[in-house]
């Protein structure tokens, strides 16, 4: 079988997250599925096309996989009509993952921007499940506006824990929002962590990553301790089609998660 052949996989649930964002829950119990936080799958809509979607969660020990999708393209828009009992094609998991063990015994700082929280959610859940492996756990999350905050209930649950520092901010808000207003980078200087002993995971739009990395470096976190997730056009996910090339990297297999210092030579070069 060709490696790009997807497997039909039933949808157990579809949940609306934001006005243009939804999560589909897939039943993968029939085949068994293991993945690492930060990896992605290719989801196929019969005859329409295929898109790379990071795994945003799982339930019941990997029996059910969650993918959070923003309806912005030719495949993701028609995916909005999917409902319980429908099927999508699935192949994966692909790519590199958040190196949880790098942060063992250290402060773990997770900075997410917008939909960038989705690929970080499994990392956060993993860290909170094995909370004793880390010193401080800090989650900084920024979105465009209050109604574009993802997984808000869950974020509130994380915030309710005494052993975790969670700060949420939005770029723009009206009078009815009582949280922080301002960019996610503003949360970095306010967070409590030991810079020299911190591992940071950052995911969001590339500009958000740039500014956040700078803020982390300003606080004294070294580039070797910062991990970022990159986005490029991924079509085949197996390193064959060439679309996701980023310098010498195929983001689909060498990424999407990179240690920042390894990207540093090309990170600020335009149009690489």
């Amino acid at each position, binding site marked *: 079988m060709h490696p790009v052949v997807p497997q039909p996989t039933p949808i157990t649930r579809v949940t609306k997250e934001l006005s243009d964002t939804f999560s589909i829950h897939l039943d993968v119990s029939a085949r068994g599925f293991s993945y690492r936080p930060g990896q992605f799958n290719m989801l196929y809509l019969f005859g329409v096309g295929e898109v790379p979607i990071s795994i945003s969660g799982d339930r019941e020990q990997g029996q059910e996989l969650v993918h959070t999708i923003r309806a912005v393209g030719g495949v993701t828009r028609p995916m909005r009509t999917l409902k319980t009992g429908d099927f999508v094609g699935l192949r994966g998991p692909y790519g590199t993952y958040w190196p949880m063990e790098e942060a063992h015994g250290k402060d773990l700082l997770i900075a997410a921007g917008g939909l960038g929280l989705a690929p970080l959610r499994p990392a956060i859940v993993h860290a909170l499940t094995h909370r004793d492996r880390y010193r401080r756990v800090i989650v900084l999350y920024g979105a465009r506006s209050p109604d574009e905050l993802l997984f808000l209930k869950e974020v509130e649950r994380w915030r309710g824990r005494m052993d975790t520092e969670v700060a949420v901010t939005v770029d723009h808000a009206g009078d009815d929002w009582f949280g922080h207003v301002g960019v996610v980078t503003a949360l970095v200087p306010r967070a409590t962590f030991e810079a020299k002993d911190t591992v940071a995971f950052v995911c969001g739009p590339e500009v958000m990553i740039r500014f956040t990395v700078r803020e982390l470096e300003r606080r004294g976190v070294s580039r070797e301790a910062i991990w970022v997730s990159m986005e*490029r056009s991924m079509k085949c996910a197996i390193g064959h089609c060439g679309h996701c090339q980023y310098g010498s990297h195929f983001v689909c297999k060498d990424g999407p998660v990179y240690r920042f210092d390894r990207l540093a030579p090309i990170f600020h070069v335009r149009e690489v």
Partner: protein
Amino acid sequence: MEPAGQRNDTIALSRNALAGLVNAIKLDGFAVFGPTVRDGAIVYDHLDSLEDLPIGVTDKLAPGHYRLAPREDHALFGHHVGPHSLRREFLIPVATLFRARRTPQGFAQIEEPPPARKLALFGVRPCDLAAVAIQDRVLLNDAYRDTDYAARRHGVLVIAANCTQAGGTCFCASMNTGPEARAGFDLALTELDDDTIVCTIGSDVGRALVQRVEHVPASDQLLERARLLLNDAATHMGRTMDPHGLRDLLATTLEHPRWDDIASRCLGCANCTLSCPTCFCTSMEDMTSLDGTEASRLRRWDSCFTVAFSYVHGGAVRPSLKARYRQWLTHKLGSWHDQFGSSGCVGCGRCITWCPVGIDLTEEITALRQPGGS
């Protein structure tokens, strides 16, 4: 295939015997593909007999220039490389990777037998063979295996034709892929004159094949003639390019002003990528039958020269022509080393020949070696 090139692995054939060899291959059920004249160019296509080779025809190659011309002799292999490479045979321009029928359980794959064809390549060039090895590394010997490519590559018989002359855009000697084939063949031919061919045996299959036609061991004199011809071709390449340090050069010159200069000439037509024997970029297209009950996925040649190639939601990563040309060249000559352990260039010169404005990557590399801003 075992190492070739030993004295007793080199024989001499007449042209008649070579014609017999083609017939023997056909008798074994192979479709024979090799260089032939079609539509004013020498392309790789079906050969019925030795007569279908471009006998007495050569090709004049220069930047942005390709013309056929008669030769004074009746050489079989007195030409260089045309617009087609072997990529068309293995990483075919359009392949169906997956077909499925809609079912109550979502969909079911329509199983199809892998493409099966006994293919013999006859008279293919060393640079093109080197390119096949490079594509093998990408599509067969990486983490994933393209099964369509694998099926087409399987069991291919290869009769190479060494180059006894170099074309105006050739630089295989610089890239160490020619003018003599070193690996990846069953037999390799060196045409000495209209009736004398020296043949290096590269495999047991090749050895068995030549047993079926009249041949003699190659004499020292013939071997010396072959060596002189190949040396002459190597020292008369139309182009040269110093391959050393290209990986580092291209990794450190991303902001070199030369890229703007190239972009002012480049038309973004993608000819270089389509004629390149190692370019492997493809797109995947999903579609359904008109009634929506069947779906298929096609793999189609794509090019990093299109704006849409790098599109992520919101826009293309490389909207400027400068960035797209830079992507192609830095990948081909630079980052390919990081990815696959070799250069992605075999020195065939097609990208120079088929560039409508004659952009010559060997010249561009020379320019990039000059300090920025000069």
